[in-house]
């Protein structure tokens, strides 16, 4: 495959070479670079090189053992969504379709992310050469991103031999929303083939409603190839774009990636959040016309029914609506719809355990509706003046890219009242 084949577009949002940026700011950075995060413990044997960051920034050495650039990280970030120091660049492969699914694979350098189990967070630091491989999966018909852990798996082969097999983590990132991804070690440069298995959506994982009720029932496999070479390694590292240093760690989020559809406007309407978006250069400068949907939810006022407010917990906004006329129940009762999302970019927060106490009691069921999108719901009747308590039993069990790792972990209960 040649550098400029259509399957090989690099998202170069920035024309600023990493090297230049790094050199320009090295001196000023020194005070901002913390040690590693407090939770970067016990991560078996990665004290070696390749620790992406959190050390002295230096010019990128893409032939080191992990081809991860040394980027600064925000010292002592707030327990909230915050602006990281930089925006990553990545290579988009061509969209592949299989059955009802469309998948866009993306590649960048191995980088740090955080796993979440219960309320525990575990930093994953890259420690070997390879790629950070990602895939966004959406409904080929409606363009709706399917934002729950479907147990996807992938097999990586080279010359017909199995190199790696893994279940990529369900993840959220400010620029990509919900996707699957992992750092994948690659023994050497060359052409790799990926078979990505999509498992049926539903069962007990998520209730499907509306047009989705009978869909996504077949397992499918998509195949794609990528080239892992020096050129790729350099281009993703050189494409790193720094934010102005005085914004690092500020409340806010990077804009979704250029070309991602659906972002009518950024922040502002996600339930009365103030606009803490990245603000500058919303990514259109590269002129990329990629058609990949972004997993954003509708703003609060776009939902049907009565608004019960948009309380927040752990920096997530919870859109709470009470629907009386709805196909989401058997018709004999109303429906409490709760849609937790990230601030600014309205990325759905999947795979959490949510329940309600008070005037209505029970566990909310994770639901994916063809019109209302991802939410948690429970059937029941409510009357004006009644009080409810929304209880987050466990926070969203999705891995986090930088800037999301400190939010959505400690999530106290929220009180709401039916107006």
């Amino acid at each position, binding site marked *: 495959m040649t550098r400029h084949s259509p399957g090989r577009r690099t998202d170069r949002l920035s024309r600023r070479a990493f090297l230049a940026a790094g050199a320009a700011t090295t001196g000023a950075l020194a005070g901002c670079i913390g040690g590693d995060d407090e939770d970067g*413990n*016990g*991560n*078996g*044997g*990665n004290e070696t090189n390749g620790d992406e960051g959190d050390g002295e920034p230096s010019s990128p050495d893409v032939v080191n053992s992990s081809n991860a650039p040394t980027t600064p990280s925000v010292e002592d970030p707030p327990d909230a969504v915050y602006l990281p120091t930089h925006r990553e660049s990545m290579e988009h492969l061509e969209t592949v379709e299989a059955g009802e699914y469309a998948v866009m694979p993306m590649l960048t350098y191995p980088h740090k992310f955080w*796993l*979440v*189990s*219960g*309320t*525990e967070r*575990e930093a*994953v630091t890259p*420690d070997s050469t390879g790629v950070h491989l990602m895939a966004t999966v959406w409904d080929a018909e409606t363009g709706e991103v399917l934002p*729950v*852990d*479907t*147990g996807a*798996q992938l097999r990586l082969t080279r010359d017909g031999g*199995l*190199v*790696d*097999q*893994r*279940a990529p*983590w*369900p993840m959220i990132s400010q620029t990509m929303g919900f996707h699957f991804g*992992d750092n994948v*070690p690659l*023994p050497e440069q060359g052409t790799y083939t990926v078979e990505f*298995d999509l*498992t*049926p959506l539903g*069962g*007990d*994982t*998520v209730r499907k409603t509306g047009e989705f009720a009978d869909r996504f029932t077949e*397992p499918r496999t998509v195949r794609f190839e990528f080239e892992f070479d020096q050129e790729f390694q350099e281009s993703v590292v050189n494409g790193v774009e720094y934010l102005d240093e005085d914004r690092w760690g500020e409340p806010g989020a990077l804009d979704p990636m250029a070309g991602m559809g659906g972002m009518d406007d950024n922040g502002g309407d996600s339930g009365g959040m103030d606009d803490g978006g990245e603000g500058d250069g919303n990514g259109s400068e590269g002129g990329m016309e990629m058609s990949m949907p972004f997993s954003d939810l509708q703003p609060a006022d776009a939902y049907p029914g009565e608004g019960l407010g948009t309380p927040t917990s752990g920096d997530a906004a919870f859109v709470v609506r009470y629907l009386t006329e709805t196909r989401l129940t058997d018709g004999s009762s109303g429906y409490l719809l709760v849609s937790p999302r990230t601030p600014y970019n309205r990325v759905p927060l999947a*795979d*959490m*355990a949510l*329940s309600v106490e008070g005037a209505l009691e029970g*566990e909310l*069921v*994770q639901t994916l509706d063809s019109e209302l999108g991802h939410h948690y719901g429970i059937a029941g009747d409510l009357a004006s003046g009644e009080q409810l308590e929304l209880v987050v*039993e*466990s*926070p969203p*069990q*999705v891995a986090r890219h930088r800037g999301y790792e400190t939010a959505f972990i400690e999530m106290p209960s929220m009180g709401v009242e039916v107006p």
Partner: protein
Amino acid sequence: MELPDPDEVSRRDYLRSLVAVGGTAALSACLDLTGDGGGDEGGSGAPTGDPAERPARQHAWNDALGTDEDGNPRPPEHHVVLALNLATTPDADVRKTVETAFRSLERAYAYDPAGLLFTVGYSPAYFEQVGADQPVPDPEAITTLESPEFDGFDAVVHLASDEAAVVLEAEEALLGEVDEPNGVAMEATLEGVFERAEPRRTGFVGPGLPAQHTGLDGVPDSVPEEAPFFMGFRSGFAESQAPEDRVTIRDGPYAGGTTMHVESLTLQLQTWFEQDSHTQRVSKIYSPEHGEEGLAGDVGEKLGTSTGVAGEIAERTERDARERGMVGHAQKAARARDDDGTPPLLRRDFNTVDNEVPGVHFLSLQRSIDEFVRVRTTMAGEDLAGEGVGQRLNNGILQYIFVRRRGNFLLPPREDRALPEA
């Protein structure tokens, strides 16, 4: 596969690679090595045996097995699961030949892990061929996360021994490639009755063995030295295994026999060891309580003969999913125990590096295949997904295991092990 270079690997590792490679060349390399080490009665130097000493149930191994320091049965170190296809139409003479071949093996090796433990099983395809009712169903996908291949061959022989040379030699002797295994003549072989089929499954189990495979891509250096299994923890505690009685068929033509399911899995060890912390691993393999309270120790050495998941911890599985966002593999699986607390499966799984990727051949005995399916479904925990854990994520060890292949077999009682008719 080529023979490994003995100068580049440890002796034990070399022996295990020879089992994986198989064949007469591997066998003679193996005998060369073990010949100068141990006994010198010729051949593999293992104790010889007497067919009359063997119990009526093929799967009755526990009496012969040694125990670990806590008193748990210790599985044999080396395993080969030999796949066979019928090459002739069974009749009384053929049956006699087959039985004679097995009895020859029983004379060549003692009923002991230092000798040879083995079982002979038959697949649905076999019963169809001989026109008998199928006592076991065709294998099927059990969970939504898999699209496995299925064993379609006719018969299977599971060979197990603490001696690498014994499993290799017994395999070759059955197929007529070695005349006098362990110095004892084969009075008949399976040659002409069966021919070798695919896949040949091999493996090993025991403290320290997995860690010796860290040269292989996919096996990180961080596999604990003392771990008996690739995922780094002890398994097969006496208390969580079905007694042999519990897996024995009670009535009908195969009373005294059992059923065997073989599920071959690939493991993702790099993620397991290098992304998760030890506490997370303990939580995911046993239960979140084991992780939080430090109940397991490094590799499960604190657990004695029981993980303690049965009862309260298993009952709390759903609550742990919702409130802790994580459930343990053993905790989940223990929900499938009998009302009186007896586990329904006798697990005789072992590690493998077949195809040069780390994996497990999860070999399980149970009274009926239905019971396996029920326990496997419980272990998959799809009922928990969306309740604080994902289909795979934080749902026991599902994030790290990939089902490759399944097979179902009937293991008749020993007296009917040669080409059963009904």
